[in-house]
């Protein structure tokens, strides 16, 4: 059961957030053999496709560094760029709205929907709309939102949240999808992916034509021209933004780029990083509503700029890097942790490495304090990130805030009660460790005790149940073999002592 975590009025509300259940969700995910099989296959495939795609690009690092500096520059003057964007877009006839928090954003969209007597809204995939809980707000107002991205449609029918930023149904096997559609549409379904896709095409076509409102996100907002760019493969975004009379786009404020030409490097790198394609099927640049009544397309275009806690991340150069994210999902696909547990275990619409840093910073550490620990700090995410976000660095920073409070700001340790309790016992353990490491004698003494314990436990593994971390280790791994002595107590180490040092 999903219980909403915070008030949508509060800044930093993330819908359906249950990231504090991470400890419980992880064993469930690990025990789910189907899920692990699906994840292994999917992440392997995407990883290989990405690698192939990048081999074809001259100077990937150069391209990456261009993308990084565009986003860094955009964030460095975010207020100016947002104002420029608003001015340009408004002059072009786009209605620009500002929403400080989730509730504000939903209210704006609802207002537009109701004014236009909307009964049915078609939705293109938008993580931001998931973040603010827009679908539920629409349903509460008696409006039916239909997801049109194939993966989103599937999880909508399954009444599940998406498990991946780009491929929402990546955790489902084909026959699960077949059975789901057969149940929901109440007729037999084909077995193959092409057949199932054809079913989706057919089912959703009518909705596109009937909907009064089309809702989308936006991949990039261009300050210079007041335009925004939407990237896709399926064509549902084109339909969502062409057929209904009114189009509303919701976008995080961090989506801004300064110039039209900035789109070049970003488009060039985003799809290769995401799916391994050289370029996605469709990029649609929207600048104005139709200028001729005979033309196709919406009569009204609205763009909602959402803050919801993002502006706070700009306080610090390191945390500000989080906002460079262009939502390509390369970090999810490479992350060995995500590969083991999938997206749902993170309990947030933003899973994986980016989710582990974005979610706690937006929703607050108390709501997601276990996520920064969900990493071995391997750094693969940073290596594949097209905008070079120092994800491991931010994870370390968040761990520090959770465990001790931030030294530089003097804040207190942040975290929910359970994590705070765990952190306290961890701190006690490390206080002992620090004392033990504080002198060579103690170091050698406790090393010797450790070797002795290791010998004993290897003989009697069941003893570890009395010591938490050791029990966790021996559940699946053996204790290392004990050497007879340490390095420093041996003859060689004695020979190597610096002059004038007879003992430690």
């Amino acid at each position, binding site marked *: 059961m999903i219980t909403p975590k915070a008030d949508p009025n509060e800044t930093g509300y993330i819908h359906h957030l249950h990231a504090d259940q991470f400890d419980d969700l*992880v064993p469930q995910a*690990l025990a789910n053999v189907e899920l*692990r099989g699906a994840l292994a296959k999917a992440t392997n495939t995407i990883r290989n496709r990405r690698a192939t795609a990048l081999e074809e690009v001259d100077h990937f690092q150069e391209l990456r560094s261009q993308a990084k500096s565009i986003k860094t520059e955009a964030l460095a003057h975010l207020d100016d760029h947002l104002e420029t964007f608003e001015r340009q877009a408004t002059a072009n006839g786009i209605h620009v709205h500002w929403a400080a928090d989730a509730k504000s954003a939903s209210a704006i969209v609802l207002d537009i929907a109701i004014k236009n007597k909307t009964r049915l809204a078609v939705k293109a995939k938008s993580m931001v709309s998931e973040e603010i809980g827009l679908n539920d707000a629409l349903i509460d107002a008696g409006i039916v939102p239909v997801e049109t991205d194939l993966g989103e449609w599937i999880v909508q029918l399954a009444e599940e949240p998406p498990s991946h930023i780009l491929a929402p149904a990546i955790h489902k096997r084909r026959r699960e999808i077949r059975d789901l559609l057969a149940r929901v549409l109440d007729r037999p379904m084909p077995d193959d992916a092409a057949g199932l896709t054809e079913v989706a095409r057919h089912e959703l076509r009518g909705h596109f034509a009937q909907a009064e409102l089309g809702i989308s996100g936006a991949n990039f907002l261009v300050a210079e021209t007041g335009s925004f760019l939407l990237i896709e493969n399926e064509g549902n975004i084109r339909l969502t933004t062409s057929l209904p009379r009114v189009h509303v786009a919701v976008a995080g404020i961090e989506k801004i780029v300064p110039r039209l030409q900035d789109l070049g490097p970003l488009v060039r790198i985003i799809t290769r990083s995401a799916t391994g394609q050289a370029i996605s099927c469709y990029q649609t640049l929207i600048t104005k509503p139709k200028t001729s009544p005979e033309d196709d397309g919406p009569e009204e275009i609205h763009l909602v700029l959402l803050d919801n806690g993002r502006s706070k991340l700009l306080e610090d150069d390191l945390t500000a890097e989080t906002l460079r994210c262009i939502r390509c999902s390369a970090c999810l696909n490479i992350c*060995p*942790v995500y*590969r*083991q547990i999938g997206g749902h275990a993170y309990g947030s619409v933003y899973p994986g490495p980016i989710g582990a840093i974005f979610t706690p910073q937006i929703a607050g550490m108390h709501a997601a304090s276990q996520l*920064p*620990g*969900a*990493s*071995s*700090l*391997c*750094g*693969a995410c940073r290596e594949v990130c097209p905008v070079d976000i120092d994800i491991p660095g931010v994870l370390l920073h968040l*761990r*520090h*805030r959770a*465990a*001790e409070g931030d030294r530089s700001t003097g804040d207190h340790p942040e975290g929910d009660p359970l994590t705070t309790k765990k952190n306290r016992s*961890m*701190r006690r353990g*490390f*206080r002992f*460790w*620090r004392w033990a*490491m*504080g*002198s*060579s004698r103690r*170091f*050698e003494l406790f*090393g010797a005790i*450790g*070797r002795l314990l*290791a010998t004993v436990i290897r003989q009697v593994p069941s003893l570890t149940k009395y010591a938490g*971390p*050791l029990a*966790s*280790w021996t559940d*699946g*791994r*053996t*204790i*290392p073999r004990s*050497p007879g002595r*340490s*390095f*420093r107590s*041996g003859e*060689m*180490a004695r*020979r*190597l*002592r*610096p*002059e004038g*040092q007879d*003992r430690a």
Partner: protein
Amino acid sequence: MGIEGVSSLLLMRIALFVTCLMDQFRPEAAEATVSVLEHCGCEVVFDPRQTCCGQPAFNAGLHQEAIPVCRGAVRVLDDQITRGGCDAIVTPSGSCAAMFRHAIELLDGDDAVAAKRVAEATHELSEFLVRRLERIDVGASWPGRVAWHDACHGLRELGIKSEPRRLLEAVDGLDLVESSTCDRCCGFGGTFSTNLPGISTGMADDKIDELETLGIDAIVSGDASCLMQLEGRLEARGSRIRGVHLAEILAARETLTRINS
């Protein structure tokens, strides 16, 4: 202090940072590290005031505990390079070498300045041999079939990728095969390994499933914590694959050093 070994020309004086784990739990690899360096003509100095670089606490976010420990290591090593006549610091661990870079931000004032000196002078073993000493062949002999595991910190923070491979390829009798999961994390990650044990062992399994298809005798790494993790899981799975530290292979000289199952 004297130096046993072939070379009569001393190239450099090296301060050894042996790492807490190798010191207490893998002394044979620590001694192998020294042997290799001495064989290559270095004079090695080991200052026993050293204990740990502080990384375990730092990774857990506990700066209060990490700082005093890290500072201790930095001061000892800095002393060795500024007053002890050491030309460089060598450590048989990529993660510890990388930690000294973090130390620059972690420590304050004079200690931060010392940390910078230490970080600039510190090399991981394979990187030192290949890039500093320009040695590929260290006269080692180790018959057997192995695969190399790229430890994360060494690979991604220090850029170590080709060096260990070149060193291994030059080992007499060694058959080095490439593992397709070589750059995947072993799952250790410090406290991660016991906080999230299911994920940690799952990550190890991911690699081991593939390693088992390669027909290797051993998995080789430059990081003792990775070895501890992989060996723990290999043994629990009843695998015949052993874990070996790079230094142990590079120091091996007799043909009888083949590991028996």
